[in-house]
């Protein structure tokens, strides 16, 4: 590297993203614990491996095409009709391998790949105890490497056409990632149907007993930890945002190149978490499942604008989003017989949409993007269809955020989710036969899930005693 400043900023950025990746893996640990905790003892290993295998599968396809979508489609089809195959993120790129001239592409890719794995994991929990692993993994390819990636290219990149022309703002991916993943889950659930026994003959909702509430709660705790990494990965941690020829201005920025402070974001993160947890605790009457989920509903509701909100604003928005998620989840479950085993549609889908819509109102008039040579963000010709500020930068508006959020949730979530779900169903890849569902998806290993409870351990100990002649 040419000088000390370049070396320090480059190596810091490389290490920063590396650490976010490590933290984000806790999301998967949490999802696995959570889902296994919610499952009955006859389905534990199937549930665990179904979720776990989303990690390598989404990772592999993310190298094949996921990251390329994000880089290549930012201006397409509105800002430009051209699609480049020389972005540096094609699977054959020399930058996505040990290369002394590039220290960022790999960790940048990995942070995005972890986002994709998380998106796929969102689906996994909802469909436990009756879905086939193969069908889920095919669905995971869509959700993890397409459904949120194209929205991210358009609305979560400084040069994305929705940011430039519609002034879209969604810093921590409420609408960009959670909404399409949550609504794709809804589409899939419509095709999949509920678990046997979930609804009674008169349509009454039955509580399916979860096998380990402590795993569920600890799992969500770990998701909270991973969420810190997710937030951190949404920044440019250090960059000079000064215009060409102007005095240097070093700062952290949001994904749109606008200066922010990690300090402020940390408070907003925590207050959104607090607001969600307290609200969920109160409205659910102290239900532990909802209290922990409330942390997530709060975070996802406030995430779209958590780079700029005041902590108390984050708390209020988180509380409102949590009430919405709780109410809608119970209403939809009763009214439409939707068996969402972990409440993913409510937590990610409804709160993702809510977060995207609210940010448009609360941040109305904020510059949506800040072009600078340091961030490689430039201003497109004719940017700011819904208005510009005095410097000609596109501004955030309720209309811009509403349009984009709707496109992401419905166009990339619900509709394709339902179509792919029906196709999987048609090919017999979606749901296990009823007999398998009743006897348990773990098959012959069911007695080994908890040997001390099933009697397997006692039977073996009897053999041991017999052989020891005791």
């Amino acid at each position, binding site marked *: 590297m040419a000088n000390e400043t370049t070396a320090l900023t480059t190596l810091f950025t490389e290490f920063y993203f590396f650490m976010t990746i490590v933290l984000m893996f806790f999301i998967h640990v949490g999802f696995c614990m959570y889902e296994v905790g919610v499952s009955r003892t006859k389905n534990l290993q199937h549930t665990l491996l179904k979720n776990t295998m989303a990690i390598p*599968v989404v990772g*592999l*396809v993310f*190298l*094949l095409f996921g990251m390329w979508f994000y880089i290549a489609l930012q201006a397409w089809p509105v800002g430009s009709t051209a699609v480049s195959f020389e972005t540096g993120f094609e*699977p*054959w*790129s*020399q930058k996505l*391998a*040990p*290369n*002394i*001239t590039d220290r960022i592409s790999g960790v940048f890719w990995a942070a995005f790949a972890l986002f994709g794995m998380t998106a796929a994991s969102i689906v996994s929990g909802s469909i436990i105890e*009756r879905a*086939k*692993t*193969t069908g889920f*993994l*095919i669905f995971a390819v869509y959700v993890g490497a397409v459904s949120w990636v194209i929205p991210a290219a358009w609305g979560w990149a400084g040069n994305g056409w929705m940011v430039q022309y519609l002034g879209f703002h969604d810093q921590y991916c409420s609408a960009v990632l959670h909404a399409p993943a949550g609504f794709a889950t809804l589409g899939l659930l419509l095709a999949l*149907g*509920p*678990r*046997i*026994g979930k*609804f009674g*003959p008169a349509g009454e909702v039955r509580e399916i007993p979860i096998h380990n509430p402590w795993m569920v709660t600890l799992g969500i705790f770990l998701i909270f930890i991973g969420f810190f990494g997710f937030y951190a990965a949404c920044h440019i941690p250090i960059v000079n945002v000064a215009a060409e020829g102007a005095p240097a201005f070093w700062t952290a920025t949001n994904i749109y190149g606008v200066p922010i402070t990690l300090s402020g974001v940390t408070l907003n993160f925590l207050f959104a978490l607090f607001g969600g947890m307290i609200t969920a605790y109160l409205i659910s009457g102290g239900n532990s499942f909802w209290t922990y989920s409330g942390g997530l509903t709060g975070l996802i509701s406030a995430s779209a604008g958590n780079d700029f909100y005041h902590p108390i604003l984050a708390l209020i928005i988180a509380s409102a989003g949590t009430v919405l998620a709780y109410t809608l989840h119970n209403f939809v479950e009763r009214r439409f017989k939707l068996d969402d085993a972990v409440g993913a549609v409510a937590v990610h889908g409804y709160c993702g949409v809510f977060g995207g819509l609210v940010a448009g109102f609360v941040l109305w008039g904020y510059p949506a993007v800040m072009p600078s040579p340091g961030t490689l963000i430039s201003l497109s010709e004719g940017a700011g269809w819904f208005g510009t500020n005095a410097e000609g930068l596109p501004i955030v508006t309720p209309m811009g955020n509403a349009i984009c959020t709707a496109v992401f949730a419905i166009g990339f979530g619900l509709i394709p989710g339902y179509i792919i779900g029906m196709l999987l169903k048609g090919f017999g*890849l979606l*749901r*296990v*036969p*009823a*007999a*398998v569902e*009743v*006897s*348990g*998806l773990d*098959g*012959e290993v069911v007695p080994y899930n908890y040997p001390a409870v099933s009697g397997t351990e006692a039977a073996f100990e009897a053999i041991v005693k017999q052989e020891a002649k005791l």
Partner: protein
Amino acid sequence: MSTGLSSLSKLPELTTLYPFAGAEYVYTLILLGFIVVFFMWQTAMEQLHIKKIMGEAKSEPAPSAAAFAPAE
């Protein structure tokens, strides 16, 4: 023989560090093949697993399924 890095004498000229640089298209095809094989294998493995459970379920006494309403 060196498949990639053979000298560290000219640091400013260092670029790719991995073996067989220039064969990235071949690497890509291997990745694609790996994914395809995985899905084929997974599909067959799951079908076998389900058949096995179905066989075991048939050999057991019928569960009290009358109380349940199968979703499909």
